Each structure stands twice: as C-alpha cells, then as structure tokens.
C-alpha cells in the first residue's frame, strides 16, 4: 500500500465522525522504484492532506519531507523527488491502519489493506 492510497483511506466504521487519517503501524516497509511524472505529482499534490501525509511518511521511516508546503514548493525539483519517493515508492507491506476514533485495526498484509467491517460496525 502506497502513501497515496493511505491518504485516500478513512475509517468507515458506523458512527465515526473523525476517521481520517488512519494511524499507520508499520511492521514491514519496502521500497520499489517507479518512474517520476511531474504532472501527476502536481495533480496529486492538490488532493493530498499534507499533515496526514507527512505523519504517515514518518511512520514509514522517511523523514525528508518539509513540514510546511505551499504551491511554490512544487517548483523545487528536489522537493518533487522527495514527494515522489514518499507518495509512490514506499510500500507498507505488513502492518495495520488504526482508526483514530475507535482504535480498531485494519490489517495490511502483502501490501493490501483490508477495510471489511464486522457486522456490528456497519
């Protein structure tokens, strides 16, 4: 699971009002290189919730991203490179995503999050 996906996931448990972001418990992180596309990164930048993204990247062991960003940050190639790496090249292989309100753990196995709810959570 990439951090792009993590930034798009929120807790779907019934009654939860503040289910984003899910806290990452990282047991195994792998890095897989993929080609960079600046246009794609710029589009994704607009959708990403930055605080959640930077916290998540730290949970995955990556500390190179700046705390504060604004649209001008995108002009830096160095930033784009780091953004690309954190967004698309870090994979949570094993671990869990934790609902910030209930503490319920959604397991991540082989890079795949399981967001299926139990009957009483729907």
């Amino acid at each position, binding site marked *: *699971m*990439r951090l*792009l*996906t993590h*930034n*798009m*996931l*929120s*807790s*779907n448990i019934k009654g939860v009002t503040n*289910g*984003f972001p899910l806290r990452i418990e990282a047991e195994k992180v792998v890095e897989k290189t*993929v080609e960079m*596309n600046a*246009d*794609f990164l710029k*589009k*994704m930048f607009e*959708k990403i*919730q930055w605080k959640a993204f930077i916290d998540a990247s730290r949970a995955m062991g990556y500390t190179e991203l700046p705390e504060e960003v604004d649209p001008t940050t995108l002009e830096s190639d160095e930033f784009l490179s780091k953004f690309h790496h954190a967004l698309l090249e870090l994979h949570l292989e094993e671990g869990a995503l934790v609902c910030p309100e209930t503490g319920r753990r*959604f397991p991540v196995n*082989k*890079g*795949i*999050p*399981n*967001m*299926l*709810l139990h009957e009483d959570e729907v």
Partner: protein
Amino acid sequence: MPSRTAQIRLMSSHEEVYEPCDDSFALVDALLADCNNLLKHCPTLCMEIGCGSGYVITSLALMLGQEGLAVNYIATDINPLAIRVTRETMDAHGVDAELIITDIASGLEKRLAGSVDVIVVNPPYVPTPEDEVGVGGITASWAGGENGRSVIDRILPVADRLLSEKGWLYMVTLIANNPSEICLYMREKGYASRIVIQRSTEEESLHIIKFWRDLDIEGDNEKASADKSAPGRLMEYVLTQLPPFTFWRCSDRDNK
C-alpha cells in the same frame, strides 16, 4: 507488439474467484473501442470496483499504459482471494494498481470524492434470491438479488460520488437489470449514457453502458423539477438513447 489486453495464459486463478467470461470480455471490448477517447481524456485516477481475477483492470492498465500517460489505478473487491488473484495477474503482465479489500469503495469514498476519472465495473448482475446476496466467496461475484439490481443500486450512488467532473463510468448490465431504468436514474443525477456494446450469448443479453456528466442534462433537471410533464420527457429521452436491437454472437476466445 505488446498486447493491449490481459492474456488468458498469464491470468492467475482460484476456484473461489470469478474467471474472465463473456461479460469481462465485453467490458474490455467496450474499453478498447473507446481507447482513443480514453487516451485523449488523460485520466489521472482509474478505478475498478469488483476486480475479480484482475482481467479488466489489467487490460485497462495495458491499454492506457503505453502512451507515457501517468495514471494511477485502484481496484477493490470484497473477496480477499480475488484481490490476491488480481495481484498475481497484474504482476504477470507487468502492471500495477493499488488494491484494497473492501465493500464497493467503503473507506475511500470521503477522500476520493470527485477525484476518479474512470470507473469500470462488472457487477454481480444475475437475478437471484435476495438471500444469496452478500453471502461471500465466489457467489458475491454474480448474486444480484431481485432483477439483479441489489449491488448495482448500491454501486451507482458511490460511483456518482467518486467520479470527477470529467469522470466516465463503464458498467456491465443485463436486459434483466432494466438498463433504461438505470440510465434514467443516472440521468436524474446529471449523466448522459450510451450503450457502447450490446452482446447476446446463449444465456445472457449484455449491455455495456457508458455514463458521463452532461451539463445540459443538469440544466434540464433543474428546469424539469419545476415542470409537471417531466416524467414523460425523461422517458422519451431515455428511449432515444437505446439503439435498435442489434445482435451478434459472442466472438470465440481462447480461454484454455
């Protein structure tokens, strides 16, 4: 020349996962027929709801992946085995997607709202008793309840929420699902629709429908809500969208 669709010989499989069949091939044929439009459309995010064996999402990724577009793919399935098979299928074809085990798009809807440019779905459309819906395993891939619409009717509002302004939805339906009713429902949400492929086999009469947002329709809907003759006008419109019935046999596929 690299294949533009998934190859059967490279597909992974499992007895509890739906194998590609006429409906899957029809959906991929619809995407292939629209491939030039899809490429010109420059989608950023494409999603499959109910990826099964991975045949459709893999084919979509192959079709769009060769032009240097940067596209991100997401696929969901309620069956964890299907997700595993999709991963294996994608790996075998050298393509990639973010895979999530979930019911339709649960967990993604809030953050992905208005962000997905292409959604493809081959839903469980077979009319079955209601108690077969939601049973799990491979049954989830076909059991559609009354008129085969139980899951389709849950997918449509989710798709509406996820689709971007320029978003396109491609969906497989059966005649039994009452496609004109589906198109009417979507029209009320501001979507135009077109049957892009109509295919009849011995068992099924498939309609692959494409939906897209149409500002003229959104304007009409606002006027229609004040106009008493609206239902008649809407039905008239829907009937003009259905071409005269055409029928040809499903082409042979090498699915050995």
